[in-house]
């Protein structure tokens, strides 16, 4: 009982505190209806003292009422009773007992709705992870959260915002000042984030402001604060979410396990599903999951949809977009300005077009203030968006009716309609005009004063009277709220000076300094003593301390001041084009397949014809049409290739480019469920750079941190296309296995605090990982095949079953002979086939055993000595494997080496004198064979894909330059066009930088250039610990990049 009283007492203090703030804000000329403010009647709560229930009846008359984006009533009346709109319209009689507010000349809009906030949600505690990379981190294989929850902490659909939400008057102010009276609040943490609430921004008991206690279910790709190690990569996040959908389906059918997380996951499926993503590629990643599971997501994005508007439109989804447009960069220092990426420059220019672009495309979207560093930028940015193509109508819908519908509160808020909540704002004029002032924000009938209305406007010229003020005039201009003052003393020693004025209600204080006669600051304090005409009256203190009385009387209207904030920004429609991809060397238009005749070249056919001199190659419709001498040129673009060489496009069997969010999901020893296909980054500059080295196809592999890594993806270097479009359609599925030092973690740092280590730590343990995994897979296959099976679908085991069924193929990272031999025996005994040993640096020692099993070898040309297991790696490895009869190739595992794999093939000539014809096959036909696509690519043969390279010299030579590279007959790399692109790039950078300088000169805030670069992955790249609680993976990547750079600097 004592506790109860104490709590009640606390709440009382709260209430008084609220009121005292309120009191301060009241002013003399303000109508005193605050006294009738609706009381916080709450049925179940006891009251200390007398009940104070007020009718809450208001009549707002004579205003321009914008009931929704399509209807405006001028001179209308809005009746409010007990927080509800009782009537809205023209000529509505005002019943007795209503407080009348005259809004002549003013506007009423529906209260705005912010569809994405964390308002009132406590910050999630950050987990402390062991530092120092994979090996050093504490092993947390399963959830540490007490209770009958799921295994992974990042899947927490059981989180309900309603159970933790607590309104915060101070924090709601930023929102209310911008006109928001309703917001969605969500728990911004984890992959499945549970449900959100919709609340009114009234400063009272949480019980009274809840509009929807289960508004939506939320998701993201970011594991957030979860301590569970898995997932450590974006592909892991996606795999986990995918598995969760299957687990939730299975959960409905089983009785053995009670699992709150899965139960809640199922229970919240009928709510709106909101997915936080970042850029368009991220949106498309989430959309793939949506389509896979028949889900419909609403996407909260980073506002970059303009980059891929067609693909965005095609998702058929709704969006919640921010207006946190970037500030211009500091570009004065040309060297520092070099750190700004081209897409950052372009984004500065194009981000404000995003809302308009979405509108034009007919995409439904809400606008959120989420993500703004400074809430005050909200309206500036909305107006910038309008200048850049967003209509006022759409803007209003995106801030009212659209979010209301998305969040299931359209019956309560969004329009000014009879029966809806009295959530509205009062403004000085059109909400979207720069000089508009938001006066009041009524959130569900609770008044919040943003800026006082109906108070005397002090702007004007005044005559000042009083001792010491002979011949003095005073001018007040600026805008209400931001007054400016100047004082003029005329006569023999006439002078004029600017002063400072502060107004608090009806009180004013002014100070200024004439600099001479007298020297020093003169201070005035006073109050508004009359409003017709406005008269200010009070005391003055002179620099010498002497006192005087003063009176200032309005004489005439003041001239408009020219403050920069008042200037209407010029409509800025001069923006550069969107390019594909949105990065340096992107194309304004994606190049198309051409009919081309390359004449008189030395053609390395890779077929039985061998190397043909003075030969022509005709490509048409993306295919090689014919190869021969003196081919007719009818209709084809002719390229004279005299003295030059033509080869098939280079195929890299082992690459880690064009993937994002981590290349290793090394948190478990078996992660066959993760898929590189989910995380393709088609905007990686290395796709383009490698075209410039003749590479046309790359096999993007999971890293080598664990014995059974992830599923791989074969791609073509179609620069400018979307992730799904660069995939090599119809190619067989592969998976990465790994052996050796990486798998056993031998080169990781020592474990933190003697923590447990991931199994295995020896090559002995590696064998058992495979035996165990395939034993499970076989049993699983049997169990699933049984009639009426209720065996849970397990994506990890599915992939292994595919291997057993010869539907998925292994490429295994491998070094020393012992482990290679071991895996061959495991494969024999478990009944699966190894397609390729990749790296395979000691392949030369077991080539005969590989030959017996028809296993290919994809190695480095000459790498060795970089760790113990390559102490006997030799550059003759390729030659020896080739001679024994293996399908042999050279791969890169490195974004740099990949673009001169032709030279690496040349090293088979240096070391071992392989014939040049065979050497080139190491990086073209042979890897194509390994990938089972030699029917499509790998040689110059009519009917095959027109993936060809025009070289300036013998392609194996260090002197060969790739002048043109075709993929599917499309000229994606052309050394001449590249030169033009470089010029255009420099010119466009110069243009945007000029524009930034102008913006800065106009007073725009700026930001320092920061460098964010693509992370280059190789086999051993492991994501650092998830110490960053990031909004999304892009952000996480940025932060990690920065951390790496900081570390690199320290190390230098």
């Amino acid at each position, binding site marked *: 009982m004592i506790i109860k009283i104490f709590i009640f007492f606390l709440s009382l203090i709260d209430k008084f505190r609220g009121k005292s703030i309120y009191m301060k804000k009241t002013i003399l000329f303000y109508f005193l209806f605050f006294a009738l403010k609706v009381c916080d009647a709450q049925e179940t709560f006891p009251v200390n003292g007398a009940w104070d229930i007020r009718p809450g009846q208001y009549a707002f008359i004579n205003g321009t009422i914008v009931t929704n984006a399509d209807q405006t009533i001028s001179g209308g009346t809005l009746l409010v009773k007990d927080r509800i709109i009782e009537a809205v319209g023209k000529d509505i009689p005002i019943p007795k007992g209503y407080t009348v507010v005259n809004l002549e000349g003013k506007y009423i809009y529906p209260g705005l709705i912010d569809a994405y906030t964390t308002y009132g949600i406590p910050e999630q505690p950050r987990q402390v992870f062991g530092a120092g990379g994979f090996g050093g981190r504490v092993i947390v294989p399963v959830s540490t959260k007490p209770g009958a929850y799921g295994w992974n902490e990042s899947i927490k659909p059981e989180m309900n915002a309603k159970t933790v939400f607590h309104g915060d008057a101070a924090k709601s102010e930023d929102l209310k000042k911008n006109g928001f009276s309703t917001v969605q609040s969500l728990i911004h943490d984890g992959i499945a984030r549970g449900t959100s609430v919709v609340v009114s921004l009234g400063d009272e008991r949480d019980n009274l402001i809840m509009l929807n206690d289960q508004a939506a279910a939320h998701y993201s790709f970011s594991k957030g604060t979860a301590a569970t190690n898995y997932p450590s990569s974006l592909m892991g996040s996606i795999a986990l979410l995918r598995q969760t959908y299957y687990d939730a389906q299975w959960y409905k059918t089983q009785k053995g396990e009670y699992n709150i997380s899965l139960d809640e996951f199922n229970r919240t499926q009928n709510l709106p599903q909101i997915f936080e993503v970042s850029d368009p590629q991220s949106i498309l990643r989430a959309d793939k999951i949506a389509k896979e599971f028949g889900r419909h997501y609403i996407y909260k994005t980073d506002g970059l949809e303009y980059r891929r508007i067609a693909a965005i439109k095609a998702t058929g989804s709704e969006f919640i977009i921010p207006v946190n447009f970037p500030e211009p960069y*500091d570009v004065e220092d040309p*060297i*520092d300005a*070099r*750190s700004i*990426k*081209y897409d950052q420059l372009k984004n500065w220019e194009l981000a404000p077009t995003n809302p308009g672009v979405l509108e034009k495309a007919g995409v439904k979207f809400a606008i959120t203030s989420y993500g703004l560093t400074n809430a005050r930028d909200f309206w500036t940015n909305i107006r910038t968006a309008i200048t850049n193509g967003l209509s006022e109508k759409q803007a209003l819908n995106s801030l009212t009716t659209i979010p209301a519908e998305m969040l299931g509160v359209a019956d309560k808020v969004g329009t000014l309609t009879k029966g809806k909540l009295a959530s509205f704002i009062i403004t000085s004029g059109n909400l979207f005009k720069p000089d508009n002032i938001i006066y009041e924000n009524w959130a569900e009938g609770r008044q919040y004063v943003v800026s006082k209305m109906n108070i005397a406007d002090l702007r004007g010229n005044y005559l000042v009277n009083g001792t010491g003020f002979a011949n003095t005039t005073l001018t007040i201009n600026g805008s209400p709220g931001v007054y400016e003052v100047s004082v003029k003393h005329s006569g023999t020693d006439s002078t004029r000076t600017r002063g400072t004025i502060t107004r608090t209600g009806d009180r004013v204080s002014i100070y200024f300094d004439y600099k001479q006669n007298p020297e020093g600051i003169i201070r005035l304090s006073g109050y508004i003593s009359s409003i017709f005409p406005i008269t200010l009256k009070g005391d003055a203190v002179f620099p010498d301390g002497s006192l005087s009385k003063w009176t200032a009387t309005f004489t005439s209207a003041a001239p408009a001041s020219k403050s920069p904030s008042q200037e209407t920004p010029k409509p800025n429609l001069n923006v550069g084009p969107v390019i594909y991809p949105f*990065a340096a060397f992107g194309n304004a238009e994606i190049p198309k397949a051409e009919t081309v005749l390359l004449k008189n070249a030395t053609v390395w056919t890779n077929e039985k014809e061998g190397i043909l001199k003075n030969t022509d190659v005709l490509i048409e419709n993306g295919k090689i049409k014919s190869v021969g001498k003196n081919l007719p040129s009818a209709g084809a673009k002719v390229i004279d290739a005299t003295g030059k060489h033509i080869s098939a496009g280079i195929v890299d069997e082992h690459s880690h480019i064009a993937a994002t969010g981590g290349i290793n999901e090394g948190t478990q020893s078996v992660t066959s469920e993760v898929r590189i296909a989910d995380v393709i980054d088609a905007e990686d*500059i290395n796709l*383009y*750079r490698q075209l*410039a080295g003749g590479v046309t196809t790359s096999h993007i592999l999971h890293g080598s941190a664990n014995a059974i890594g992830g599923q791989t993806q074969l791609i073509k270097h179609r620069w400018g296309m979307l992730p799904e479009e660069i995939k090599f359609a119809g190619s067989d599925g592969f998976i990465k296995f790994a052996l050796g030092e990486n798998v056993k973690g*031998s*080169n990781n740092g020592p474990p933190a605090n003697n923590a447990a280590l991931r199994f295995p730590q020896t090559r002995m343990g590696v064998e058992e990982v495979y035996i165990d995994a395939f034993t499970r897979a076989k049993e699983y296959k049997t169990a699933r095949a049984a009639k009426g099976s209720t065996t849970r679908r397990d994506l990890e085991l599915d992939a292994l079953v595919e291997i057993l069924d010869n539907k998925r193929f292994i490429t295994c990272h491998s070094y020393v002979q012992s482990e290679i031999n071991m895996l061959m025996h495991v494969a024999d005994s478990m009944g699966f086939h190894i397609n390729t040993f990749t790296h395979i640096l000691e392949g*030369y*020692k077991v*080539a*005969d055993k590989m030959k017996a099993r028809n296993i290919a070898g994809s190695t480095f040309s*000459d790498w*060795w*000595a*970089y*760790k*113990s297991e390559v102490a*006997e790696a*030799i*550059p*003759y490895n390729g*030659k*020896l494997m080739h*001679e024994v009869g293996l399908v042999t190739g050279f791969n890169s595992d490195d*974004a*740099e080496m990949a673009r*001169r794999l032709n*030279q690496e093939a*040349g*090293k088979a*000539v*240096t*070391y*071992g004198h392989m014939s*040049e014809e065979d050497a080139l096959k190491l990086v073209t036909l042979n890897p194509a064979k390994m990938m089972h696509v030699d029917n499509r690519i790998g040689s110059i043969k009519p009917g095959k894909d027109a993936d060809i390279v025009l070289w300036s*010299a*013998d392609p*194996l030579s*260090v*002197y060969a*330059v790739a002048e043109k590279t075709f993929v599917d007959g499309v000229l994606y790399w052309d050394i001449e066009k590249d030169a033009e692109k470089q010029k255009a*790039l420099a010119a466009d*950078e110069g243009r945007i930088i000029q524009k930034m300088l102008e913006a800065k000169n106009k007073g725009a805030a700026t930001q320092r*250039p*920061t460098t964010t670069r*693509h992370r280059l992955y190789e086999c051993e790249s492991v994501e650092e610990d998830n110490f960053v609680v990031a909004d999304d993976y892009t*952000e996480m990547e*940025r*932060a990690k990049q920065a*951390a790496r750079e*900081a570390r690199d*600097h320290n190390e*230098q």
Partner: protein
Amino acid sequence: MKRTILSLGGLLLGISFAYGQANISPAKPQTKPVVITGATIHVGNGQVINNGYITFVKGKITGVGEGAAPSVADAEIIDATGKQVYPGFIAPMTTLGLIEIEEGARGTVDDTETGELNPHVRSLVAYNADSKVIPTVRSNGILLAQPTPNGGLISGESSVVQLDAWNWEDAAYKKDMAIHLNWPVAAGGRERRGAIPVPGVVQETPAQRAQKKVDEITSLFEQAKAYAEIAKPAVTNIRFEAMRGLFNGTKKLFIIADNAKEIGQAVTFSKRLGISAVIVGGKESYLVTDLLRENNVPVIIRETQTLPDRDEDDVYLPYKLPKLLQDGGVLYGLTGTGFWRQRNLPFEAGQAVGYGLTKEQALSMITINNAKILGIDKTTGTLETGKDANLFISKGDALDMIGLDVETAFIQGRNINLDNLHKQLYKKFSDKYGLKE
């Protein structure tokens, strides 16, 4: 290989074909004069002599010219008709001999001392003349190297070694000739994002952090300079003793700096202190060629076979960097990466040829230019009379992977053993599978 070696059988002493490294012995001093005839001679300074000859006696070149060689009594004649002769390649700024296995074998790693300011630590004494890696590099024509320490702000001092020696003492070609400084990186205002700001604490920007280090270095060097003015200081400071040479012209300061701003700072710094400086790395050196040329500061490019730093850069920028410095009138050399990868040094040089350099300019990068920068050009770097006979014969173009095939190599006139671990393993497994090499 075997075939090659047999054809030169008479020249080679004590070759056996047992496996392992212990049998690859340093060559004996040159006793008989050698005359190479009929070769295409790449002098190293841009000059090419077709059908040329070269003679050397007791380790020194005694004649180079076109046509028939003058007769030299008791000489060993090598007919190199159709073959190429090059000056031995020089690999500066390498960890060759300092690291045997990069990762997972810390005991074999000796390139990075702990601490920030180590001008006194000497790479020469850690140079492992018995490294298995050295013969694999040497057999691609790299005959001299500068094993260089890493780490800290001042990493230590380096020497130039020749790559055929019983021990580091024999290997030393020019002792303790450079001190190595890592110029602090500010990197264009990059700041650490994702760090949690502490209220009330103004975060140091990278530029400020770098400036602190620059101040630290400046102070150290000024004191070292003052110290160097006194012949016998009352209290000996071994760091300053090591730095003495910087101020009397006997040592150079190799400064690792990639960005234009930092290169500028480093050049000004060394000029003010009167130090002979070399920029190493120099990725953005092409932006400041005037400064480098006017101050006579050379650049050692680190790798051409690398990626551009910025997405916006010309995709071929690293390939074009030598040409840009050539056109800018800057003296530039080249190194590869690490230790074992130095065997690719010829290809790193050849890479620049497709992008503007001539073949002979590319050759100069890794011969005479490197020699000048290292201060050994009086004795090596070109095939000119009076210089050491550091040279090799290749069947084809040594800068190209489809040409490089070193048959014979001489260091100071000694006909060195070109066998190595890799050739031995190749032989071993060719035999296992019954293949011809």
